């Protein structure tokens, strides 16, 4: 078998150590070694965006990276964006806005939108459309994903406002 290389990586805030072949794709490492199968692989050539994860907060195609390249970095997958019981704002917005159908491309949209809204908290509909135009979806025609971006921004602003309110509340 091919030579194995040690990889230490933080995924969704949990430290993982593993030994992998040099050619092990980050997407395969996450999915099959760590069994975080929320990250999906739609093309394996970096075009569809389904495998998008956040590397130190920035969206990257995990099918275009080797696992060894992720050593020492912090990765966030869709599993790190919220849970069924406590969905994150983007997840919640997609659910409210019917922003998904088969759900296969959705994890890539969630990570992409999460990163985008951190930089651009108040996008217009046009900007929202532009923001998601590097990810392919075959089901929705994107209408409700655009809507979801706007809704997520709204939720985040609301959450922030609530947090501000709490901070401002007298002790």
């Amino acid at each position, binding site marked *: *078998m*091919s030579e194995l290389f040690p990889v230490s990586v933080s995924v969704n805030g949990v430290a993982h150590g593993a030994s992998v*072949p040099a*050619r*092990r794709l980050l997407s395969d490492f996450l*999915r*099959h070694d760590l*069994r*975080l*199968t*929320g*990250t*999906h*692989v*739609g*093309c*394996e*050539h970096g*075009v*569809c965006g*389904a495998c998008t994860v956040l590397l130190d907060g920035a969206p990257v195609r995990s099918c275009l990276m080797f696992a060894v390249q992720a050593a020492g970095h912090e990765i966030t*997958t*869709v*599993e790190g*964006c*919220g*849970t*069924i019981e406590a*969905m994150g704002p983007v*997840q919640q917005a*997609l*659910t*409210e806005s*019917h922003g*998904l*159908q*088969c*759900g*296969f*491309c*959705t*994890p890539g949209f*969630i990570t992409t939108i999460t990163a985008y809204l951190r930089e651009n908290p108040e996008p217009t509909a046009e900007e929202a*459309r*532009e923001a*998601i*135009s*590097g*990810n*392919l*979806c*075959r*089901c*929705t*025609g*994107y*209408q*409700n*994903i*655009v809507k979801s971006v706007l809704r997520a921004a709204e939720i985040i602003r609301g959450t922030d406002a609530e947090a501000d309110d709490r901070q401002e509340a007298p002790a």
Partner: protein
Amino acid sequence: MTTRQFGAPVQRREDPRLVTGNGRYLDDLGHTAYEAAFVRSPHAHARIVDIDVTEALDTPGLVGIWTHEDLEGPVGEHLPVLIPHPALIAPRTGRALAKDEVNHVGEAIVFVVAEDRYAAEDAAAKIRVDYEFLPAVVGVEKSRTATELVHDDVPGNVSAHLLQEVGDLDAAMAGAPHRLSLDLSIERSASIPMEGKGVYAKWDSDAEHLTLWSSTQTSTGVRAAVATRLGLPLAKVDCITPDVGGGFGSKIMHPWPEEVLVPWAAMILGHDVKWTEDRREHFISSTHERGQLQQVEVGFDDEGRVLALDVKFWHDNGAYTPYGIIVPIITATQLLGPYKPGTYRVEFWSLYTNTVLVTPYRGAGRPQGVFAMERTMDAIADYLGIDRAEVRSRNFILPEEMPYDHGLMFQDGRPLKYDSGDFPASLAKLKALVGWDDFAAYREEAEKHGRRVGLGIGCYVEGTGVGPYEGAHIVIETSGRVNVATGLTTQGQGHQTAFAQIVADELGVPLESVHVTTGDTRKMAYAVGTFASRAAVMSGNAVALAARNARAKALKIAADALEVSADDLEIEDGVISVKGAPDTRMDIGMTAVLSNPLRYAFDEAAKAATQFAGTFDPDKPPVADDEEPGLEGKDFYSPTQATFANGMHAAVVETDPVTAEIRILRYCVIHDCGTMINPMIVEGQVHGGVAQGVGGALYERMVYDESGQLLNASFMDFLMPYASEVPHVETDHLETPSPLNPLGIKGAGEAGTIPGSAVIASAIEDAEGFPITRMPISPVELWELRQRHERGEIPSLRRAHSTTTE
């Protein structure tokens, strides 16, 4: 009063799972399974001279290599002709692994299993196959000339030839005051779901039972086909469809070679085996659709009424015909749309080519038929100088003419008989939505600024919900939990929500208590599959019927227990009570307890059903002769024919006067799919359909070269629309219920896609002033058409930029 769920835009119950990474798609299963890879033909047409696996044998991690000669019995035989038809005179199918000859790039030749996919691909790369090249037949034109043959024993490359005629066409054509001819062409495209195909098989040698998971649109179909191929009793095989990342028709084809080989290997090896299709494999070894050449001759009167419609078309069926001739049959019949030509003759030839096989892709032959019909309507309007919408309305079948029998046989072998629809109302809504009558002014204003804009229209009728049947089995637990199983599969349509809405209403229980399972042969062994916009119609009605049976039983048990008449009871929010006397009541879960006479109490509630509880008639058995224990309901819905949905689309496009870039400014949809279970989901289906229609009109095509190489078999080169290419979609709905089924439902899945090429062609033609006859169309192609038009090679339209000339 419980809120009625049917018709409400209920949020999808599957979503929390899918948005948090808790979906389970095929490749999310079987982490310890061996994995498969294939050596596939790099040539479109060749004889296999030799296969040398020697170099591959010492590949680390290799488990096994198989070629056709290793396959025993039915495993190596030709795959089945799924839908035989008398007109399919020369059906040909491939095998799980090619024997002696390959007929398209991508055909599987060698099957490799290894400890993981990396190792399997390592081994596959070292296998050498020697070929003797044969001439490749690519494209309808080449196939039609039949100078070379795909299959030696199929003369003319013709797999099927079918002629249908209604009325005396020749006489009507000869007598028509006006006649026009059109030569039309539609290129290949494909479903291209985000998740490719995949199979995972587990052989339990203790139980001698095979369980396979497939990313399929028909788990019952795969189960039966695999059991037959592997020589297993049906009872020893189950097929489960996990979450599926889209299908759009591609996954209704079955059994794929991989669906036969992966479980076969799992049995031989005594180890789980999995195969996950990669993107290139999906492009070259799954399925395509659409490619047709069409000739239309139409005779019409001074008012634009069609007296005679004579259509000939040549359909590219690719290398094999396992799915029969469903696609060209649909083109031939659904071409008629909302119209009633005086006479109709349609003749098609289905032709072999050395390319990927052709089976239904969302729309399934309708986009081509609608393209032919709608181009014809626009041509008539232009010839006579009549408004394009007006010509259409003069040819409409009217509501009072429903049901309307075209006198043709549809794709289900049953009459092409429309059940309902209000086409004038649909058109009126469309004209209002797009502002049809104001467009001339809009164009005038745009032209002042040097802009070129056009308005297009496309109308269609879609036969949905074809049989033969679907069923549902409902089991109500003592907790009140309602389990619903229906056998067809789900690829994103929200069945767990929509079917739950129906059951919640029928039973009178909270939506949250209803749990729907689809595509699992362990839960429902009788089913057909999800295709032809049929799931809501077929399983929707089946779950309703099954729920009514369960409800009747619950009421009967409650009536006995409460000593009232069942007619006096109602169920709301899971509580059965006497109408007007709500204190006389019983939870539906308690009727489930009482439905199952017990010897052993397993919990507090169950005590009520044990033998010393309550008062029973000692002369009657605990379970009456005509009863069964348990609170269950089962039923099947099997319609006499399809139900026909319809819709009309309009688009405004802008074409750049210099670069010929095409931009869709507005896209308007009127959609009538009968009563809607969940309008939010229906709207989503329409949006997605439109995106695929737009893709098919402007971007997507399969670019084969003369030697049969698919030049754009990747997402880099096959231009699937991103959000930046799909316009905002404006929709409005009509709800003309189907009289054919209890819920009044018509299918909605394919609708959005169907008129895409027709409506965009209509709009571009309107902008440019010369006919558009080939789709899809790129800016380069439009630019070339302009050059040809300027040289006088293409005639101008008669109308001079006015869509509403009378």
